[in-house]
């Protein structure tokens, strides 16, 4: 598992979340997962911006990426907690 997004935030205000990549996002990053360090109580919207800074190779997918928190679909204003598992999810196409 790679680590990413350490930034300059003070240690006590930073938390770790596990980020999982799937489908085309997995191929673009070359990773199954990454440990991401972000500010506590960060929103998905802000997380998304930081993710794209950290992984610019995802830029081509940015309009189509969705996110999950602990296996539930996430909205832009949802907040992240310590040890959350975040899925980076390109368009689904089962069936």
């Amino acid at each position, binding site marked *: 598992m790679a680590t990413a997004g350490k930034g300059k935030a003070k240690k006590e205000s930073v938390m770790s979340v596990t980020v999982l990549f*799937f489908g085309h996002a997995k191929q673009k990053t070359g990773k199954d997962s990454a440990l991401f360090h972000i500010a506590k109580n960060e929103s998905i919207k802000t997380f998304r911006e930081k993710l794209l800074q950290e992984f610019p190779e995802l830029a*081509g997918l940015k*309009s189509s990426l969705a996110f999950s928190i602990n296996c539930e679909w996430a909205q832009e204003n949802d907040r992240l907690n310590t040890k959350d598992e975040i899925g980076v999810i390109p*368009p*689904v*196409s089962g069936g």
Partner: protein
Amino acid sequence: MTVQLTKHPIAFGKLLERTDASCGAAAIFIGQVRDNNKGKKVKAIEYSAYEKMALKQMEKIVRVAKNTFGVKNILMVHRVGKLSVGEISLVVAVFSPHRVEAFEALRFCVEGIKHQVPVFKKEFFSDGTFHFSGTGDNNGKCCA
């Protein structure tokens, strides 16, 4: 077993054995790998999934469908891995006393899988390129 992801061919005959004598209707959807897409000849499709979330979302769809349509039982099985043209990728079976709610619940379930379940499709074309369904800049040289 109500929902399942499997790397193995789906033995749908076994899935369709009626388990509730009050059910007079079984509505069944079978998805297969098509031989063409976007004007190109398809050689194979590789399905991958966020398995933990996929199973959770499939269970949720089943729960909502049962509550909404009053059907008795629902089975969903989705393949993962690389499938050849003609192979079965998905089976959904809905068992109900009567046909109307079985048809309605079946459509609800299949559409739910299409839109809410994190399964991903990588299509391999006969010209050596591949394509991830639903994303834009995703054509590439075939790697396999």
